[in-house]
Each structure stands twice: as structure tokens, then as C-alpha cells.
């Protein structure tokens, strides 16, 4: 029980043994009633699965950037495979993906490219903390210093003596063979960079002395889980030091570490990565619009659309610490020159804060070009895609696939009197096999019909006035502002975010039964705290569920105690 560790300090302030006893009893009762979680009311026995996750491409690059700098990281594309979206997140696919032989070859090629840059004349003086006595020969002390420092950051824990000795030996043999200290060092570094011990984020558990019979992540695994969660990168030096000293395993030490991480600018990287994943922005990697239909929309425009939304998210949730739900009604955003043409607003060069006026139809994420263009066709809008995306991305609902033999031809009715999507899509409502699903998608999509397939505003479609009324789970609305408010007030909006954040933080898909209680707990606290994301991140990062472990889906035993040090 973590709380017990503070008890001796508290007891010392009382003069009499009787008083001390009374306080001790009270503290014990308090923690028992509170589920031993420091008073958060976390459900008893909360725990998350132990996992073996493959580092994502972004995590690989961000970790290299921390260790060696952006120029080294940027020069080498991350050699990791694309992930299968699992439980709404690509990151969760990392808990089950395998690495093919072909991929390992790419990982080795990337490792060689990184190592070559690290030791080249441009970088070696900055990245290698010593100089060899002779550049044409092995130098074990200098190699050891570099490999020990770098290895600690790359492996996310100190390099044990046996492994370090082997690395130094490899560097030395290679240096002698190649008659080049730096070339030898590069070869040893390549070996580290292809090591599955680093590329796979492997949880290691140990008995939890505060919860007899329970197991917890060891300090280094906890540091890694925290760091990939909040920063989308491996732990930095300070976090590893907290793990090494054992401080991270104390309640106060963990609070200090988490608060420091949340106060760091790097939390923006973590939150960006999360929302980029949750909102399916990887689609932008290959998204394009028909240049005949939308001549002003280029690849740069779409890249800016993605960036605009991420900037909005960071500013709203992290910088201003605003209510998450207000992301769907806020008029505050950022503008770039590329986007100004689409939005039809004046701007200046570079990214600048921008606020849509009160009479503008633009408010909230749904009306940003990113959402509108990603969930539309290359040359036209899509009521159905937008409605489906709203439900799946922000409400965590699953819309079934259409039946295999459905005939959509009526949607292409050449009748020129059918000018709007609402008229053409009437077939959805009149065809029983379509109606079941489309009635949960189309009514929200209609509200966005003032925006074409590129996200540009339009008054009419084919000259016809647009009817943008609709409903969302019983909440009727007349226009986009009504939809925004209905989504803002939807009870699944915050709970969906909680589900995704918890899944992202603990590194894999949720368990319907195993995580139900803890998700309800976090959702309740998220609401009480005013739907502030930093508070949710902190709550999850400090929870027992985050650090206590249970057997994973793969059947990984929890009786894993050894440390690979």
C-alpha cells in the first residue's frame, strides 16, 4: 500500500502514542476505503496487462532525436512497419504486430545510416563524450563511455556489465579490423539499434511490496510506460534517474516525475501523437483531392489542415487547459496562408492564431478542413463518411459495414431534380437494408453539408438551398452549431476520450470486462475536474491501474521478476 509509506512521517507529528495509534488506524481505514489508491477511489485490484509493444515509427524517431538530435533522426526514415488500427488506435496495434525478415533488413539499414551519422566528423564531437587516444585503433575506455551513456537511453535502463563488455568488445574488434575507432564504434551502435530489447517495449514486473500478492511494473518499465504515454518517446535522463534511485516507485516520487513530464514542452509531442492517432490522421499521408474539382487544394494545403487541428488541440487542451468538450464548439484556431484560401479569410505568412467570428459557420473540430476533407470523397462531400467518422472517432461507436449485396445504384440517380445529397440519399431511409445503419450516420453528416469535399463553405449545392437539420441520438438540431452542441453534450464524448487515452497509455486494446470499472472511475473524475486533459493524463499516470499488472492477452505470465540489467 503506497499510502503507508507516508504514515511514519505523519505519525511523528503527534505527541502521544494513543494519538498516533488513532491516526494510524484512521489512515489505514482511509486507504482501505479508498481502495489503497491515495484517496482517488480507484477500484480495488485495478491493473493493466503486461505487454510487448513494438516501438512505433514516431517513437523510434523521437527517441533518436532525444539521444542524437533532430538532424540525425530526420535524416533516416523510421524503418518500422505500418500498424493495424486496433480498438480505435494504431498504437494498440503495436502490441500484436510482428516484424518480418524484410523489415529487419530495413531496420539494419536504418541503424547503419544512423550510426554513420553519429560518428561522422560533423557529429562526433557533440555526440561522443570522449576522444580516442588514437583514431585508428580501438579505445575501450572511450567506447565504454559512449556505449554506456547511449545504451542507457536507448535500452531505457542501465546497460548491465555483461552486455556492456560485449558491446565494447565488438567496438574494439571492429575498430582494429577497420583501423578506425569511429567506424568500430558505429558497428557496435548498429547492434544496439537492431536489438529487439530496445525496439520492443517489453514490460517487466516484480512483486509489489505495498500490495502483497500483486505485481507491478518495475521502475524502468514504469518509466518507459510513462514516457511513451506522455511524450511518445523513451524516458529522458531525469526519468531514468528517478527509476534508478527507486524514487519513481514511491507515491511522491512518481507524482514529482509525472508533474515534471506534464510541465515539460515535450508533453505537446505526446498529446499530438495521441490525437493524430485517435483522429486517424495517418490518412493524410496519402490523402489527395481531385485537382479539377478543388484546384486550390494541394498536398501542402492538406498537410496544413492536419497541422491546424493539432495546433488547435494543443492550444486548447494543454496551453489553455480548457474543457475537452469545448474543442467541438471553439472558434479559436490557427491559420496559415495555404488554409486561408480554403477558409476564405485574410491572413499573413506563417502560423498565426485566428478566431472565427460569431456569425461564421466555423466552430469546433468538425468544421475544420481536416475533418471535412479526410471524411469526404476526392471530388465531393460525403454525408455518410462524416457521420460515420464522428461516431467512430469521437464517440467510440462502431458502425457496421454495409451488407455485401446491397445495391447503391439509386444514389447515382441521374434525375436532375435531385440536387442535394439529402435528396439523393433518401434511398437510405426508404431501403430497409440501408436504413438501419444510415440513420445513425446521415443525420449528422447533413449538418456538415455546407462544406464541400475539400472543406470549403458553400451556400447551396447545385443551386439548391441546403437543409442542414438533423439529430444526434435524440438531440435534434437545425444546423452545424446545433450538431456541435449536441456532440459537446453527448455523454459518450468524454468517456470515449478516456477509453482511448487509457488504452493508449497502457499500450494496447481495452478489455470489455477487465477495464470497465477503471474506465468508469476515470470518466467520473474527468467530469468532476471539468474535462481537463492534463488532469486526466495525470490521473491515469498516477493510478494503480497504470502500474499494477495482470496477465496480458498473449498469456504472458505475470511471474516475471528478473531485471535484464
Amino acid at each position: 500500500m503506497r499510502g503507508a509509506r507516508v504514515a511514519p512521517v505523519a505519525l511523528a507529528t503527534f505527541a502521544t502514542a494513543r494519538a498516533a495509534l488513532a491516526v494510524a488506524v484512521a489512515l489505514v481505514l482511509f486507504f482501505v476505503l479508498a481502495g489503497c489508491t491515495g484517496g482517488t477511489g480507484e477500484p480495488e485490484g485495478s491493473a493493466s496487462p503486461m505487454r510487448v509493444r513494438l516501438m512505433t515509427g514516431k517513437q523510434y524517431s523521437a527517441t533518436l532525436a532525444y539521444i542524437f538530435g533532430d538532424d540525425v533522426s530526420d535524416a533516416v526514415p523510421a524503418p518500422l512497419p505500418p500498424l493495424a488500427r486496433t480498438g480505435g488506435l494504431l498504437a494498440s496495434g503495436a502490441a500484436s504486430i510482428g516484424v518480418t525478415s524484410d523489415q529487419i533488413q530495413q531496420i539494419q539499414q536504418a541503424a547503419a545510416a544512423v550510426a554513420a551519422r553519429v560518428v561522422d566528423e560533423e557529429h562526433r564531437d557533440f555526440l561522443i563524450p570522449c576522444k580516442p587516444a588514437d583514431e585508428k585503433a580501438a579505445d575501450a575506455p572511450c567506447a565504454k563511455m559512449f556505449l554506456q551513456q547511449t545504451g542507457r537511453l536507448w535500452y531505457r535502463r542501465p546497460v548491465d556489465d555483461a552486455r556492456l563488455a560485449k558491446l565494447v568488445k565488438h567496438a574494439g574488434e571492429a575498430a582494429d579490423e577497420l583501423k578506425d575507432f569511429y567506424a568500430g564504434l558505429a558497428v557496435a551502435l548498429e547492434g544496439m539499434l537492431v536489438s529487439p530489447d530496445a525496439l520492443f517495449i517489453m514490460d517487466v514486473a516484480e512483486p509489489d511490496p505495498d500490495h502483497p500478492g500483486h505485481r507491478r511494473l518495475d521502475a524502468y518499465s514504469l518509466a518507459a510506460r510513462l514516457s511513451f504515454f506522455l511524450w511518445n518517446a523513451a524516458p529522458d535522463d531525469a526519468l531514468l534517474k528517478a527509476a534508478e534511485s527507486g524514487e519513481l516507485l514511491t507515491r511522491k516520487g512518481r507524482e514529482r516525475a509525472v508533474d515534471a513530464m506534464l510541465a515539460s514542452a515535450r508533453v505537446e509531442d505526446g498529446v499530438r501523437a495521441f490525437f493524430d492517432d485517435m483522429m486517424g490522421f495517418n490518412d493524410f499521408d496519402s490523402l489527395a483531392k481531385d485537382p479539377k474539382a478543388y484546384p486550390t487544394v494541394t498536398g501542402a494545403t492538406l498537410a496544413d489542415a492536419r497541422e491546424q487541428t493539432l495546433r488547435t488541440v494543443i492550444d486548447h487542451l494543454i496551453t489553455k487547459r480548457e474543457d475537452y468538450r469545448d474543442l467541438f464548439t471553439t472558434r479559436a484556431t490557427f491559420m496559415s496562408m495555404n488554409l486561408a484560401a480554403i477558409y476564405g479569410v485574410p491572413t499573413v505568412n506563417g502560423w498565426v492564431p485566428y478566431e472565427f467570428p460569431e456569425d461564421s459557420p466555423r466552430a469546433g473540430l468538425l468544421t475544420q478542413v481536416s475533418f471535412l476533407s479526410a471524411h469526404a470523397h476526392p471530388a465531393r462531400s460525403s454525408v455518410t463518411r462524416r457521420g460515420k467518422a464522428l461516431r467512430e472517432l469521437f464517440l467510440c461507436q462502431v458502425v457496421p459495414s454495409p451488407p455485401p449485396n446491397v445495391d447503391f445504384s439509386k444514389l447515382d440517380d441521374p434525375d436532375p431534380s435531385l440536387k442535394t445529397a439529402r435528396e439523393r440519399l433518401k434511398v437510405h431511409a426508404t431501403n430497409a437494408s440501408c436504413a438501419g445503419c444510415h440513420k445513425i450516420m446521415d443525420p449528422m453528416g447533413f449538418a456538415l453539408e455546407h462544406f464541400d469535399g475539400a472543406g470549403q463553405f458553400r451556400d447551396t449545392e447545385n443551386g439548391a438551398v441546403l437543409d442542414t437539420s438533423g439529430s444526434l441520438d435524440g438531440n435534434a438540431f437545425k444546423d452545424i452549431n446545433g450538431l456541435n452542441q449536441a456532440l459537446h453534450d453527448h455523454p459518450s464524448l468524454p468517456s470515449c476520450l478516456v477509453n482511448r487515452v487509457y488504452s493508449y497509455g497502457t499500450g494496447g486494446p481495452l478489455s470489455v470486462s477487465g477495464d470497465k470499472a477503471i474506465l468508469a472511475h476515470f470518466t467520473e473524475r474527468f467530469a468532476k475536474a471539468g474535462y481537463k486533459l492534463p488532469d486526466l493524463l495525470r490521473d491515469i499516470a498516477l493510478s494503480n491501474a497504470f502500474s499494477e499488472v495482470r496477465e496480458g492477452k498473449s498469456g504472458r505470465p505475470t511471474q516475471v521478476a528478473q531485471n535484464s540489467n
Partner: protein
Amino acid sequence: MSKLMNRRRVLRGMLNGCAITVGLPFLNCFLNENGTVLASTGASIPFRFGTWSWGLGMSEAVFVPKKTGPNFDLPPEIAPLKDIQQHINLFTNYKVFKDAAPNLCHHTGWVILRSGVAPLTAANRPGETIDVTIAKKIGSATRFRNLCANATGDVRDSFSYENGNSVNTPEWSPIRFYQRLFGTDFQNPNAPEFKPDPRVMVRKSVLSGVMDETKSLTKDLGAEDKARLDQYFTGLRDLERRFDLQLTKPEPIAACHPPAKPPEDLPSGLDADLVSKRHRMMTDLMLMAVACDQARVFNMFYAAAFSATTKPGYDKPHHTATHEEAVVETQHCQPNVSWYTRRAMEEWAYYVQALSKIKEGDGTMLDNVLVYASTDQSFAKTHAIEGIPMFTAGRAQGRIKTGLHIDGAGTPGTRLGYTSMKLMGLDVPSWGDQSNHTSKEIGEILA
């Protein structure tokens, strides 16, 4: 060729003097009389396996020839195949069987044809695909075991899987593909000098240490995670073999003419003209890598199962059009969908012609390959998988006849995959699951 002229004798001992360079021009005397066999070593031109895929099937009335056998007619959707007709076989009226599994739109068809097994869910990826199975047999002698590339520019588009959780990541950018194939690690077999990279030997030593680590990591894992680490270990072993290859002077290859400079970069997007351009650039790079014996298994992916290729001026991408465009009875098809299919067939024709333009020995690369081409549906509008069409290209070093249209009479489509594996020398008694199980080759094409 006398022993004194044996290239391996010349090279013997080189590895201990890694920095030494040896001038070894490609000489005609290294070839036998008809040019198909390297006389110095007796090594024949390798036999390779490729796959090609397109999305969203066909419209039967304007795709399937009336005539079977040789000199079959070319309905409008396959009219672009006129110039390659003698190099290919067309297979129609074969079935894929979902059995008790659901018909998963745009998924069931290709998964069965590539893996022999009907998927149970849309998230259910295939097990090992046939290219991977064949690469295990013939992919060990080259720098790359199995090349994958696509024309969509999307890293997610691949039909090559080691297992359900492990996709072979495709190359999607011409520049990246060029760098990987012909960048600094490429050893031109016709280079006048051979410089074994001295770092390779020391890399091998380090790699063995990583393999030891990998083994030790697996002992406390559950079954699924252990399998993932075992897979990683296998990959490292494979990498070690590739290092060995880098230490061996490659035999000269007359057909190998690597591009002198990287290709231009292309924007992202799925406009049909852009996809076509990307497909041709990727095809040229891939086939030249095969000609240079960098890989003997190669996969080209023209369009996804949910193909989102667009037609300039038409508001529906390919997939959307298959479902929303009405059939025009007088034309026996959906005209715009048919336009997309014809574009796909034009690219298939380009691909086969590209194979025919690479001279090997006294023939072309087509003589020395078997290419298997498949799609995801037959009639995509209704997600039909009955009668799903397939092709082969190449003469498989004389093992098959070409220029034929074969009517499968409703027999399993997996027969072509099975036939391919047998032709590639795999000792497999049968292939496929449940109704897709077959042990019957397509005898009509066997020479």
C-alpha cells in the same frame, strides 16, 4: 572455361584483404553459347516468382472472352492486353469459397487467393501468403528475400504477409525504392571492381551477439509474444545470410543496367494518371532489381481492394463508383467502373511488356518468371466473389504454355496458387482450407 579463369578462384582469399579491389570486367567468355547459362559457374538464369494485383475485379460481360484456349477474343475491358496476349494466361470462372465465414467486402476474395484460407473478420489478415511461402524456397540467394512495392503511394497497401500480424511493408515512393535497391548498399554485378565492404564481417559478429540477446528475451514470454520474438530471431538469421551474400562477388549479369540516377519525386494522390506514372516507375525499378538478381520474389500492387483511384472530372473514386454507378444495359457494364478496369489492364500490359523488354540470355525475362495476378472481387458492385478472374504471365522457364484463356468450371481459384507453388519447385501435396483446399493443378497450362 579453364580453371585458371574461374571467377571464384580469382576472388579466393579476398575477404582477408577487404580493402583490396579487383578488376573483373564482364566478359562474353563467361557465358555459354546460347547465353542462358553462366559458363564459368554453370549457374543458370534464375527462375523467379512475381505477383501483381489490381482492385475491384471486372464486369463479366465486357471482360471474359467468349472463346477459351489460344487466340481468345479480347472484350473491351481487356482490349489493352492485345500486345501481351501471347505472354499471359487468363483464368475465369474459378470460385473462392467463404464456407461458414461471412463474405467480407473486398477482403474475402484476395485473402483466399493469396493465403488459401477464408478470413473470419475484416481485421483477420491472411496467414502466410504464397509469395512468402515461395520466397522461403527461392529467396535465400539474393540480397532481398521478397520485394513489395505499390502504385498507390500508401504504406498500408500490401498483399504480402508472413503471418496474420506481420505484413511485408511495401515500398511506396519511387525515390525511397531507388535508394533501397540501388543506393549505397547495391553491389553492381557488372562493376569492374569488387570491393567487399569490410564492415560486413564485423557486422556479422555484432549480429550474433544480438541473436544471443534475442534468445534470452523469449524465456519469460507468453506464447504469442514468444512467437513474435522467435520471428525476430529468424529475421536476424536471415539478415546474417544476406551479409554473407554481400561478401561474395556477384556473377556478372548482362541484363543488369541499374538506373544512373534517382527518379523524380511524386506527390501523393490517386488520380489515375498519377497512379499510372507511379506504377510504371515502381515497376521499372523493381524489375531492374530482379534483373540484377537482387530479389527472386517480387510483388507489385497496382490498386487496393477498396481502390480509391480517381478519374479526372468524375466525382466518384473507383470503389465508390462500383457501388453507386448504375449498369448501362446497352453497354453491359458500368461505364466509369469499366474505365477504371481498363486503366488497370493497361498497367498490367505495361508490367508484362516491361518484363518482355529485359533481355536475358537469348530470350527475355518473361521466359524466366512466373507472375501471378489476382484481384479481390469478380463483380464489385455486389461484392461477388464467384468467377473471380486471375492471370499469369511468363513462361516459367518452359514449364507452362501461354496465350490461353482457361475456364475453371467453378473449381477452386486456389488451384492457380497451388499450381504456382508446384511450378516454383515447392513440395506441397495440397493447399488451401476447407472448400478452398486443392491438390489439383491447372493442367491446361502445363507444358
